[in-house]
């Protein structure tokens, strides 16, 4: 918050007039720019948001299943559908609700049950699909929410909505908000790190703005770690360039930036300085954390065979654990390829196979290291899928269209009730019948677990106060342990 004070000091009216050394026009502008009172109250707002709730979670790992995994083939068991194979979806269920352009013109909407069996697992006899045999073994650690819903029916707005609280691009991502609000305990790694599976079907694109900082200072943006030789691009010294030279160059650059900063007080200059410093520290910290040679065979076995293949989902899960171990605040994984408009059984099985074991392994690995109690693990996509088949329904092939009205996700670890199944959908998993949880409610709950009152963490930009949950969101107290 010292930064804000600095800006306030630098940009007071007298200073500004001196600097611009001109007449009334500048004075008027000075009036517009003297943000001192705003900045003060704003700072107060931020402080008020922070210590009010005792934090349960210190870090978060968010396993984002981009594309919208089907709830029918994962967690939302609908046994009654098996008698309705191929029948048209009753109007009493759909109630005229809108469909996407992809299936709205279909003559029939044939109901299709899951092609995969469900079994009960764990102490609480939770139903889990046979596609998730490893997750099923740790189901007692999960708090499964079956009643998520969103307003967005297409990938881009839906995923943007999930990550930033608004369907239009331009707002800060969850991880950026947390970086801004809580900072990071680890000074040598970014507070917000993004890992993308290389072994997923890239059916729907991801964009850097999903982990963008929006209007927050740019040091809070997510930093993507790549799978190749350079996990972070342009981090290494150019060839033939000595480390000491680099350091010297950076220190002079900082001085230059500082001069600029003294003159203009643009927060982006601060961000630039901070990022150069971070990049310099990352020159040693990143290779260190990416190095998995010290991991035992047992660990690789736990995460599955893919885990030796850098950049795969399993390897990313292992890497996420290493980052969390270093107290990185927010690690976001993306695994694409869940958008199964057709050929769902085959694709779904493959997607689950790629992710199931490593996901479960991450939970176990965190648990035995004593980290699950203050690390929040989140698994989920941007929306669910329809009960009816999109396109042609055959005996063992079908597809499912986007369905925003209900879908499943789970949270585990710090501060959430382990072994709970929360919320309920109707027999067609079409509408929610009990305990609906909106995306904003989920976001509010996540913030709450980290000790932040989502209504208080506010950033003023272009004359409006913004927060992650926009103007809604209620903490889902029922799932807090």
């Amino acid at each position, binding site marked *: 918050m010292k930064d804000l004070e600095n800006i306030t000091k630098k940009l007071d009216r007298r200073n500004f007039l001196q600097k611009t050394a001109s007449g009334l026009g500048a004075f008027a502008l000075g009036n517009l720019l003297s943000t001192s009172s705003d900045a003060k109250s704003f700072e107060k707002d931020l402080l008020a948001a922070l210590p009010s*709730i005792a934090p349960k979670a210190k870090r978060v790992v968010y396993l984002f299943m981009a594309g919208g995994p089907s709830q029918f083939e994962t967690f939302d068991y609908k046994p009654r559908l098996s008698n309705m194979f191929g029948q048209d979806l009753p109007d009493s269920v759909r109630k005229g609700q809108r469909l996407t352009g992809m299936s709205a013109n279909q003559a029939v909407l044939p109901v299709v049950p899951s*092609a995969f069996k469900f079994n009960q697992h764990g102490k609480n006899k939770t139903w889990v699909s046979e596609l998730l045999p*490893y997750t099923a073994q740790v189901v007692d650690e999960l708090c499964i929410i079956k009643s998520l819903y969103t307003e967005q029916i297409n990938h881009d707005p839906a995923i943007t909505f999930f990550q930033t609280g608004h369907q239009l691009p331009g707002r800060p991502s969850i991880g950026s908000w947390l970086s801004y609000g809580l900072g990071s305990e680890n000074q040598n790694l970014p507070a917000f790190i993004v890992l993308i599976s290389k072994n997923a079907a890239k059916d729907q694109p991801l964009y850097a703005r999903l982990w963008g900082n929006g209007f927050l200072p740019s040091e809070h943006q997510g930093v993507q770690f790549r799978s190749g030789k350079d996990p972070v691009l342009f981090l290494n010294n150019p060839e033939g360039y000595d480390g000491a030279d680099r350091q010297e160059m950076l220190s002079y650059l900082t001085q230059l930036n500082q001069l600029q900063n003294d003159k203009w007080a643009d927060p982006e200059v601060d961000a630039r300085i901070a990022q150069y410093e971070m990049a310099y520290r990352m020159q040693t910290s990143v290779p260190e954390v990416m190095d998995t040679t010290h991991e035992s065979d047992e660990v690789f076995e736990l995460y599955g065979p893919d885990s030796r293949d850098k950049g795969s989902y399993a390897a990313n899960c292992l890497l996420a654990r290493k980052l969390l171990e270093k*107290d990185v605040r927010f690690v976001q994984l993306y695994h694409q390829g869940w958008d199964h408009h057709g050929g769902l059984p085959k694709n779904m*099985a493959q997607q689950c196979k790629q992710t199931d*074991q490593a996901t479960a392994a991450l939970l176990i690995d965190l648990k035995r290291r*004593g980290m699950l109690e203050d690390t929040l693990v989140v698994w989920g996509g941007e929306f669910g899928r329809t009960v009816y088949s999109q396109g042609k329904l055959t005996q063992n092939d079908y597809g499912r269209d986007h369905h925003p009205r209900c879908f499943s996700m789970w949270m585990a670890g710090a501060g959430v009730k382990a072994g709970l199944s929360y919320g309920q959908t109707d027999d067609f998993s079409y509408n929610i019948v009990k305990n609906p949880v909106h995306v904003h409610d989920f976001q509010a709950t996540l913030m709450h677990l980290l000790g932040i009152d989502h209504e208080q963490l506010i950033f003023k930009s272009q004359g409006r106060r913004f927060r992650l949950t926009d103007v809604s969101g209620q903490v889902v107290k029922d799932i807090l342990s």
Partner: protein
Amino acid sequence: MDFSKIIGQFHPLLVHLPIGILLFAFVLIIYERWQKANLLSAISIALLLGSFAAALSCLTGWFLAQSGDYDAELVEKHQWTGISSCILGFSAYFFQKQRMLISSIMVAVLAVAGHFGGTITHGENYLFASDEKASDTAIISEKDTKIDSTNQTKNLVKQTFLYKEKVLPILEKKCYNCHSSRKKKGGLRLDNEVFIRKGGKNGEILKAGNPNKSLLYSHLLLPLEKEKHMPPKGKPQLTSNEISIINFWIKKGASFTGEIEDETIIPQIKVAEISNVNIASEEVLSKESFENLLTAETKLDIPNEMVLQKLKNQKIVVNLEGNSGKKLDVNFVNVKNYNPTYLSDLQELKENVFSLKINNKEFSDADMDQLKEFNNLEKLNLERTSITDKGIKNLESLKNLRQLNLYNTEVSDESIETISSFKNLKVLYLWKTKISEEGIEKLKKKMSNTRIEYGNFKFSKPDSLKGTVKL
């Protein structure tokens, strides 16, 4: 108090003037029609006065509504019906020919406005709620007589009603001002069993048997500056005796009819010590040790800025936690090469350190000696350090430990004795230690309240993915 609030407070006084005067004007109009008398000037005066009073009421009412304490929807209805009455009053005054018609409408609108006003102050269904109340008191008085008779026959120790005799007077004196029929701030009324059980906007306020989870009690303990502290700053506060009574009552089950012996000594809660406690109202509080835990914090000194800065320069992360930032959570995650002087610096704040995480390989038994005096440590994480059984012995004095992480250390079966002496330990991490399976079993037996994680989980291999579809 600001000016608008003062003006607003005249609303309840002023509203009765237009009601009375305008109704009187209406009565005069009827009377004039009926008796064919000439009361024109009297009616005009009454209408003008009444309408003027109505205008004043509207104005003060508007100021009062700005406080935001009232149900917005109701206020809006009340506001517009009120303003309509005022306009109709003036219209009746100016349009003498249509007086009968206009004033009839005015009376109807006035009645509706009055009803909404009543609803705002006395709550929804206030017309019928009074019945409930009456029957409530009837039951109580019945019980009263019954007790009297038993007392006469058995001549036992004198009994009193805990709620009626002890709790109710406190509520009456300190809470009714804002939480009763007069006002129901936060949607909460405390003047009747039904309302107390119902709670306010934020849900139930009473959890029988558990005062710390009852907002009715926990909000009394919040720091005075907190917005949620009750009664609000500036209002008469509850005495420690009164707080103790509320605590006792809830603990005993929060019965509205239960009795206690007259001589019962109500255990006193030391309010001075817990008044600083930070309870976010929605937080679940650890049951037994709530008071102890938090008194410990208030006794602490504020951590020395100089030392904090010094630690910061050494890249040691220190998070200030707890309500007053006196509890320290210390993390060595950024420390590359561990140096024993770090801990000696930290020792200056040893009372404040509640949580400590050191994961440096360089940290060894020799350094463990320095941990001895961190008496308040609740969470200790020494995973991946070089400590052995010899070092663990130094921890014996840390009686408050609730969580201990020794994963990936050289600790072996020899430490079982020491480890099992931590009576408050809730979680223990022993994965990748030298402790044998028998050792784990032994520990499990000795520490039945402790969850021991030792990484024994193994996946059972699923045969292969058996879907209905071949992959």
